[in-house]
């Protein structure tokens, strides 16, 4: 037992060392700076302030937002395991991002597939001048320091594996969770992020629109969640003997913090304190409100009562769906996207999941996978250059091609996330074992994995 633990520590160290060594070898071939590269004077203090605040807002989405959203939905005996997983992801993926994750995602392009390790350990990532890519003669964000862009993107990398844990909640071993999440962030998130957002990434070059991460974050995580739910199998006693959410007020607190943080996620993705940020802010709010209301109405109509869990699930679904579209659609588009995000995840969670019998414990796939896919496709319907000249027109604005491009990006991400997540899960299962022992699952992961309990019975 001890022996296997040390192997993991050594493996982590080795990866870290490699990340530090690699750039030293390629440093000689570093690109010559072009004269048009922005200097420190190009930094706009307003833009920088907004993106820094947005980074903090997106951080808030994982802890405590997602942690309490998911933590409230599990049983009492597993509440700490969820909070622990979210908190540990913040620590683990933040370091992965600084050491090599950011470089793999946004570093100098290698054939459209992945970034090089040239920026490992944040080498060549300036804290006072904006990023500049000499190959495309463009910048990720020309008016904010490169490190501001880096830390903003870091928070996205942290929350994405966090979304997946909703699927395997209450039954995955903590050690397996840590290893899987680290591998998944490196082998799935970083490449897909590069394809869509990295300079030279092939999906970005194709013209796929993803303003704030519908494909990169939500479809990616949603599909991985479905695969994880299938590979791990249902919780003991599912679906007949499952207790209801142990603390719905926690879930509401978490969902409200997600909504709040999402303003940073979407409006911050404008990477400037501009009119585009305002537009993204407004459509984000509109879609969340529409989807929350829609879910409540669906509940009211089909289940006789509007439910609180329904309203917050709908709102989160709306936020997921508007994410790729936030910088490309107007309020009319946001209403349409919100309406779909209230209906489609409802159908999946209420009708499809029980019929197929897989145990996506907290509906990570049902809300993020389905909502994200709807959002990516809907971006191809409602996108308009009137909102963002750098974007494209969608089907409803006379450009059916955009819809096809969106479908292609969805398809590529879906297949890649599905296959690689499956392989990673099987690999971790082989080496460590994914599932907690049945006895541990019955007692609860708080006590068996962490030797703590969330609530004492007596004072």
């Amino acid at each position: 037992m001890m022996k296997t633990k040390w192997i993991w520590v050594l493996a982590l160290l080795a990866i870290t060392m490699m990340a530090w060594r690699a750039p030293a070898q390629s440093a000689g071939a570093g690109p010559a700076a072009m004269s048009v590269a922005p200097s420190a004077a190009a930094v706009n203090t307003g833009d920088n302030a907004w993106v820094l605040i947005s980074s903090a807002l997106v951080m808030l989405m994982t802890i405590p937002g997602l942690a309490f959203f998911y933590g409230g939905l599990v049983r009492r005996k597993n509440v700490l395991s969820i909070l622990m997983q979210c908190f540990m992801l913040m620590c683990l993926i933040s370091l992965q991002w600084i050491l090599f994750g950011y470089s793999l995602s946004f570093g100098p392009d290698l054939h459209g597939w992945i970034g090089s390790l040239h920026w490992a350990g944040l080498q060549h990532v300036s804290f006072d001048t904006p990023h500049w890519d000499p190959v495309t003669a463009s910048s990720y964000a020309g008016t904010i320091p490169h490190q501001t862009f880096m830390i903003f993107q870091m928070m996205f990398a942290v929350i994405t594996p966090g979304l997946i844990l909703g699927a395997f909640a209450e039954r995955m071993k903590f050690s397996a969770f840590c290893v899987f999440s680290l591998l998944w962030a490196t082998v799935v998130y970083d490449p897909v992020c590069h394809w869509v957002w990295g300079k030279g990434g092939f999906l970005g070059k194709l013209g796929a629109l993803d303003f704030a991460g519908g494909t990169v974050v939500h479809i990616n995580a949603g599909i991985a969640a479905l695969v994880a739910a299938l590979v791990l199998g249902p919780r003991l006693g599912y679906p007949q003997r499952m207790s209801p959410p142990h603390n719905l007020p926690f879930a509401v607190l978490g969902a409200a913090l997600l909504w709040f943080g999402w303003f940073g996620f979407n409006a911050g993705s404008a990477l400037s304190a501009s009119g585009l940020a305002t537009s993204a802010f407004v459509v984000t709010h509109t879609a969340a409100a529409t989807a929350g209301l829609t879910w409540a109405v669906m509940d009211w109509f089909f289940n006789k009562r509007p439910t609180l869990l329904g309203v917050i699930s709908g709102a989160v679904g709306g936020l997921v769906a508007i994410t790729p579209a936030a910088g490309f659609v107007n309020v009319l588009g946001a209403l349409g996207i919100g309406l779909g995000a209230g209906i489609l995840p409802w159908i999946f969670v209420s009708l499809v999941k029980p019929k197929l019998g897989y145990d996506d414990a907290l509906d990570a796939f049902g809300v993020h996978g389905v909502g994200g896919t709807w959002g990516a496709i809907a971006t191809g319907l409602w996108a308009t250059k009137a909102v963002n000249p750098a974007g494209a027109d969608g089907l409803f604005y006379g450009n059916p091609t955009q819809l096809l491009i969106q479908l292609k990006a969805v398809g590529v991400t879906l297949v890649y996330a599905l296959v690689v997540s499956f392989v990673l899960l099987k690999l971790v299962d082989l080496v460590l074992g994914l599932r907690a022992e049945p006895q541990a699952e019955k007692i609860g992961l708080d006590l068996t994995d962490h030797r703590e309990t969330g609530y004492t019975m007596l004072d």
Partner: protein
Amino acid sequence: MKYIVAIIQPDRLEEVMQRLEEKEIHLVTVTTVMGRGRQKGIAEVYRSHKEAGTLLKKIKLEIAVNDAFVQPMLAAIIEGGRTGQVGDGKIFVLNLDECIRIRTGETGGPAIG
């Protein structure tokens, strides 16, 4: 000595306590419990998943009394707890073998009051 267990509606607790007070019965242990009778509970629904467990929140009173207090006490609980609707609850009267006051070591009747 009798040991009385009563299950009542949560919103009747205050009324019952007041009636007991009027009859000079001050000692009572109260717990929140889940239960159901013939009226059944109300099914909860989470993301369209209907929960099988249909229990309702009830209040359980436990009181140990000397024989002279049994009738006044039962009257107090019935007066305070009755609404006339299904689900008002039940009272169980049990024989009590022994009672010991931990502080003084007194036993039997004197230990109860």
